């Protein structure tokens, strides 16, 4: 244990760099996935069939093993950053799009009715009423995706992707050597800390972006 502590002390800068890289690729993928998913949710939440189709496709993405998906993406996108982001976006879709649809559908019909009755057009209803009311649910979807992506991003090292996965993979390649345990443990610790950090950040964001009127 003490050996691991001294390892972390010695390699602190390196671990921090990897962690930041890891966080960056997750944030980029999450941002892209959020834009796509929320848009898809808005476009489909009133249409039963379209919504089901979108959910089914996003669901299939999520079931593809990450190794396989990354390997499949090598052919069109090569190695490194691009296939990593694309794969992460694909995994992040389902929780966000599902929560967007659920959130928009759970807005009280009486609220929509009164908004219509007051002369709000479709765009005004969406932007001023439906999205703000669905926001906590959508944000939960984004949070679930974020934590999930932090785990999956570690696998991206298989295609030379950025992040903490490279240390973990290095360690796994040197199983038996004394450095192996430290490498794997260091990478894993980084992933766990990052996941906790993201979770905390999302809780805070939720607090500050949700109206007091709909907070519990």
């Amino acid at each position, binding site marked *: 244990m003490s050996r691991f502590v001294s390892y972390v002390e010695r390699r602190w800068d390196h671990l921090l760099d990897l962690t930041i890289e890891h966080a960056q690729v997750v944030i980029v993928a999450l941002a892209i996935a959020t834009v796509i998913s929320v848009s898809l949710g808005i476009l489909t939440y009133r249409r039963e069939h379209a919504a089901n189709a979108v959910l089914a496709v996003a669901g299939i993405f999520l079931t593809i093993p990450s190794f396989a998906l990354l390997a499949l993406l090598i052919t069109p996108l090569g190695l490194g950053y691009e296939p990593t982001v694309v794969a992460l976006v694909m995994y992040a879709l389902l929780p966000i799009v599902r929560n967007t649809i659920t959130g928009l559908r759970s807005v*009280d019909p*009486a609220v*929509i*009715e009164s908004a219509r*009755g007051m*002369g*709000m057009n479709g765009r005004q209803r969406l932007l001023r009423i439906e999205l703000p*009311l669905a926001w906590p649910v959508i944000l939960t979807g984004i949070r679930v995706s974020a934590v999930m992506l932090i785990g999956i991003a570690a696998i991206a090292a298989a295609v030379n992707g950025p992040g903490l996965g490279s240390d973990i993979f290095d360690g796994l390649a040197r199983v038996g050597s004394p450095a192996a345990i430290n490498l794997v443990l260091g990478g894993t610790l980084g992933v766990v800390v990052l996941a906790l950090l993201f979770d905390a950040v999302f809780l805070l964001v939720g607090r500050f972006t949700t109206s007091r*009127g*709909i907070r519990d």
Partner: protein
Amino acid sequence: MTDAPQPMIRLEGLTKVFPGQQTPAVDHLSMDIPEGEIIILVGPSGCGKSTTMRLINRLIEPTEGRVFLQGEDVTTVNPDALRRRIGYVIQQIGLFPHMTIADNIAVVPRMLGWDRRRVRARVDELLETVGMDPGTYRGRYPKELSGGQRQRVGVARAMAADPPILLMDEPFGAIDPITRDRLQNEFLRLQADLRKTIVFVTHDIDEAIKMGDRIAILQQGSKIAQYDTPERILTTPANEFVEQFIGHGASLKGLTLVRVSDVDLAEWPVAQAPLDRGALRRQLAESDKASLLVLDERRRPVKWLTLRDIESPGSLDDVGLPAEPAIVEPNATLHDALDLMITSYTGTVIVTDRGGAYQGVVELDTIMRRVDEVRRAAVERMRKDEPGSVPAEDLAL
């Protein structure tokens, strides 16, 4: 009706057939709604009354027929712009939970592009109007209000941009009876000043009689069974459907149409401090009543004293029956008065002015006389209308 002033709202051959349905929900409805009155659409559930109301602000588009507001055909104008000119209140209220009370009320004025100062002033004015302190409630959220307060905000929100027309779909339907009664009275008081044209949907004939200047009783397909004043609907129902819909006790319901201020009050022996046993005894003996009413220094009723109370050995402060709750103000209905009378100790209801000072009493006799008058008037009218009563179609327009 050709010489009547232009109606605020005119419905012409209004028809709605919902997709996939054979029978129209609203079937060729024509109706004029005069300015400044509360028009009640009342009928059994499924008769199309809510649909009719929603055809007016085009939340439902008519299959056929037209709607005119102040002579203007609004069947083809932009529906969102139309709705901003018409206040809308629904049973579930539908306040926006993520907005403060002030923001809820400000929605339509802001859409209409009012500047910030005007919006703020209007919000405060409306909160005052519905009896809520702006300082206290402006920044609150809907979940922090009671059901009655939410309904008040709902009404304030509908009136925000001062629309000439208000559509109200069972606005007091989801509120407990006591609060409902209070809100109804408040609303009537408000309407007395505002004189809006109000289309009010309910399934409750008692509410219709209480709130309506005119009532349209609707049958299946929004067919008008009778469109008339509450008095005439109660005394001369146009057909069997109306009779059945009013139900038993039309004369009892008629009591809600008469205010205490409309009848002659009876006298009752009263006494004020300092109370003197001898004087009280004499006063009671001279009257034909079994008790005296004690008033406080501002002539507000305090309690009843019977002869036995006066003869009792202890202090007069400790005896007697409280005057509450059988006390009404002149704007109460005879129905309210009768209700209190039945449970009061003396079989009477005390009438006070706004400040609570004693004015007189209403006795059962007074109410019986009134019922009699109404009945006699109805019989007379029926004789005049013979042979054959007025067909519903003639009353409709």
